[in-house]
């Protein structure tokens, strides 16, 4: 059984992720938010649906938070490090600390 403060913290974290997703719209109009709010309110007294510890709504909410957070982080990391097409030979050599030899120029010799 989780404490009320932990549940409130979980709700706030979920709200943060939903705000990030629906940044252009009012969050109170979002059906997902309304559903989430209803769920949290319904299980205010006991989060254990059917009075079984295993059917813990908080656990589901926690898993959903994990999904939203990790999807965001995964996207951010991919954007930061993702390839932008093929590198030139010179750039590839630079990565491993090498330099290309000077190419032969007939006008300069």
């Amino acid at each position: 059984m989780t404490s009320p403060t932990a549940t409130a913290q979980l709700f706030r974290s979920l709200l943060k992720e939903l705000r990030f997703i629906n940044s252009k719209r009012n969050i109170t109009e979002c059906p997902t938010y309304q559903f989430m709010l209803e769920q949290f309110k319904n299980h205010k007294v006991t989060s254990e649906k059917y009075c079984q510890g295993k059917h813990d709504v908080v656990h589901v909410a926690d898993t959903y938070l994990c999904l939203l957070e990790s999807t965001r982080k995964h996207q951010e990391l991919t954007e930061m490090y993702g390839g932008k097409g093929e590198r030139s030979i010179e750039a590839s050599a630079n990565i491993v600390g090498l330099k290309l030899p000077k190419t032969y120029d007939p006008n300069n010799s």
Partner: protein
Amino acid sequence: MAAPMRIYHSAVKSFLNVSNSHCTCSVRRFNPRELKKFYKNATITQTNGWFEINLDQKKLKTPNGKVFKVPNEALALAVATEWNMQHKIVKRHYMHLTSLCNTALDNPTYKSREDLVRSALHYAETDTLCYRLEEPEDLAKLEKVCWDPILEWARKRYDIEIESTTGLLPPEVPSSTYNKLRRHLLSYGDWALFGFLYGTENLKSLILMLAVVDKHIDVKTAVTLSRLEQNYQTTKWGNVEWYHDLDIEELHTRVAAAALFIYWSSESSSIIEKAVIEF
């Protein structure tokens, strides 16, 4: 790009000795080009006890052209949120819940319930938790401390016999263990089994997936336990953000999606039973 693809396609067709007309009915429609965001808002509607997704005024469909529908409101809302999450380009590879629903609806590889359970059970004999190292010593100790409680939990929860090994050959799993696990897995609906297989394949451990679905451990713990050796090596040799962290986050999303998919599609079992796999 188009020309070599066409050549490849015709080569495959001639190799398989199938005519065009035969091929079209079984080939899955898949367009590899990126999809621009063509809608503003994804919403859900309810019809005959199922929940559908609307992208503006259009109904969302599966890759095989069926109407996309799910048995649970929470699942439908989560899928709609996935579609609302997209900016400019729809990145379908981040939408794990949508893909899982698509797989369950279309069943593109024609898997029956028995096939799904057999594939998942196949992981039991080579379960990550059962393969132990003897050296380095601190890693062996870490594996013992972290994995033994989960194995012990599984033994008690399912009344099964499962032993760990330090050898190369898979440990002997008695047939009674298989039978008990098979019966347990078959108690889930068709949809949940797709989630089970997906989660097991990603965690590379059936027992960890069972622990997640039974809410014994949370997703992050399961991922940490699954990547225990890699975690140990990164703390020793250094962590590379663009590989290890990316890997962790991706595994989190996949396992969390599989777990949620199972929770939500098992919640209203009376509807699930009607979802017969069509051939």
